[in-house]
């Protein structure tokens, strides 16, 4: 029944404002198939990841600007620090590996946190397992940026968890 209504509405819309030439029909068909394919992929991925759609609630979108500002500031600071390391006359790195707890509830949140760390020059996420990240850092200062937990809290806040 619902499918019938859908087909009827689609037919009415198509005949009134849809594509007319063969060329337009082709483009329209390709577009429809693409949308269906991507939607199918999204549903399958969401199921495989065990959900994460909490992030797509409007309340999450409202918190996005604040996260993006915090994100941009931290990435900018890390870029300056790494640039200093690169351009210093003598390259002095003290690379280290650390286990960092990822306290986000959803796998999407944990991946976002891992990506946040990777996007910050000076630190990179090697692995994510059992709510823990394996982080490789260039030196003590880069390590401190992650270990103080402020990035973890940024993502937590976006997720809607307690501060």
């Amino acid at each position, binding site marked *: 029944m619902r499918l019938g209504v859908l087909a009827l509405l689609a037919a009415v819309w198509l005949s009134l404002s849809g594509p007319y030439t063969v060329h337009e029909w082709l483009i329209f068909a390709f577009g429809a198939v693409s949308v269906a394919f991507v939607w199918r992929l999204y549903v399958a991925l969401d199921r495989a990841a065990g959900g994460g759609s909490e992030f797509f609630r409007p309340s999450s979108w409202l918190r996005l600007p604040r996260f993006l500002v915090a994100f941009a500031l931290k990435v900018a600071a890390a870029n300056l620090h790494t640039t200093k390391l*690169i351009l210093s006359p003598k390259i002095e790195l003290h690379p280290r590996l*650390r286990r960092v707890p990822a306290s986000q509830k959803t796998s999407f949140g944990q991946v976002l946190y891992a990506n946040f760390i990777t996007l910050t020059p000076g630190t990179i996420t090697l692995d994510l397992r059992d709510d823990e990240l394996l982080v490789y850092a260039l030196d003590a200062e880069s390590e401190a940026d992650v270990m103080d937990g402020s990035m973890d809290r940024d993502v937590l806040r976006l997720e809607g968890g307690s501060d």
Partner: protein
Amino acid sequence: MNGALDIVTAVLLIAGGLFCVVGGIGLHRFSEFYQRTHAASVTDTAGAGLMLLGLMFQGGLSMVTLKLVLVLAFLFFSSPAIAHALVKAAHGHGLALELDDPGRDGDAAG
């Protein structure tokens, strides 16, 4: 007005270009694979980000700027995924990390 926008764009483009060069220099100066990924991420974030921002000032409030924002959004997801895939593959296949203090959390744990 237009002149001011052009200057802002020019400054951002040059700054972004400089960060791209810095990333390239780091790629050469750092001595091993894992360190070099950090240099590359300078190009990915500061380099690409500043250049796109500079171009947005030329686009104004238009579809062009919307598309530039989308490019930034795609980079936000694709660049860490690629960096992570690279280092995880290297780590998983046993490319040793040169660590200052291998004792504390141990490479073997990974």
